[in-house]
């Protein structure tokens, strides 16, 4: 999937936050938004992707894409639950 096609409704900047910080920030935002919202989580921590993938599967949300931006990753997550 080309990253230019994805548009986030909410951006969460967790660059520099170590585990479990980025996932905690994503969850905090997920509690707050309407179903269908796409959150872009920015993280520089390599543990974030597996954490978010696992959480998304368990919680009924969807990790749409992960884009490497060089100094951080953009993780696009659609909140369905």
């Amino acid at each position, binding site marked *: 999937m080309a990253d230019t096609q994805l548009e986030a409704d909410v951006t969460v*900047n967790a*660059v*520099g*936050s*170590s*585990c*479990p*910080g980025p*996932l*905690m*920030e994503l*969850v*905090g*935002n997920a*509690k*707050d938004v309407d179903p269908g919202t796409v959150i872009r989580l920015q993280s*520089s921590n390599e543990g974030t992707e597996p954490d978010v993938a696992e*959480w998304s599967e*368990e*919680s009924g949300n969807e990790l749409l894409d992960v884009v490497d931006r060089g100094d951080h990753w953009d993780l696009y997550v659609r909140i369905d639950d």
Partner: protein
Amino acid sequence: MTANRPSVLVLGAGAGGTMTANALRRRLDADVTVIDKGRTHRYQPAYYLIPFDYMELADQERDTRELLHDEVSFVEDEVTGIDPDDRRVEGEADSYEYDVLITAVGNDRRPDAVPGMLEGWNRTDSVYPFYHASAAAALGDAVDEFDGGRFLVTVPDTPIKCGGAPLKLTMLMEEHIRKRGLRDDAELVMTKPGAEVFGTGPKAPYQERIEEIWDERDITFVPEFTVSEVDYEEQVVRSAEGDSLEYDLYAPVPPQYGHEFVVENSPLTDGGEYVSVDDNTLQHETYPEVFALGDNADVPTSRTASAARKQSHVVVDNVERYLDGRSPAPDYDGYTACPILTEEGKAMIAEFDYEDSISAPIVSRLNWFLDVNVIPSLYWNVWMRGYDPVP
């Protein structure tokens, strides 16, 4: 590094690191560099006020680069280890040499260290480890939606920053529930691993006052309760002592440790969790060119930003003395301060050092005003800039 212009490296751009870097820039003819893995600085004492709308998170965040003076260099990098024998810090992106090192990296909040605590936050709407900004912000909706039952706050068996925060959260929640007309349907419980709700010795006068207030307001303190597991499906917290407590809404203080890159990848903690510095000079016990302050300093005081502020003065003086070839001054006396907010418009400021209590245990409107309306602007505009006109 040049022969006549020393390089001072500050690890961490939190309260202690930012204050110290800005003050050192004015004091010394030295290159001052700050390293931090992120560039958002948050006013952490806001966290227990955010759920009750006494402060907004968005108002209490600043860009680290803008807080530091232009002449202080800022590097965004994640430190991975420290080699004081080689006077070198290793980061993900680069390595950094120094003549003087100041470590102010804080502590590591680890809700994942208790089985079920982090999972409870991730998977349910009843667990909020409120020492994280995201959980503090989300707790606001949860306290508004709380419709009775038990509100539980637990304190871990590790040293924590701001030991007063769980007490304040509990008291502000009691008031919030009372004002919503739910007081008769709700129970407020706070647990600690030890016997004391606040502390003995220099803390005793404040504890006495807190006990009176909790009696009057029917807030329950459960001593000798060391959280060992959170069963978020059953909504039960179990303790190492074999007890258990049910909850309807749960705000745990997460356990806190030293950062792995200091504990595992440096000799600076001497086998412990925090940097081994002298209690009074804040100079490292083995490496004289290393100083530590704030939550990562192994000194026997309560970890607060106000302690870091007083420690910063001593570190600045002693770095200057070290570079001049003089012996360090033993000027840190353990000072710390903890404003205990008891309800809207009322607070007591607990102020003490290693030996004695300093302030009187008086609850007043002025103390609330100081803590909520005055200190945040002092923090951002004066202390973080490296100035300190207040005695």
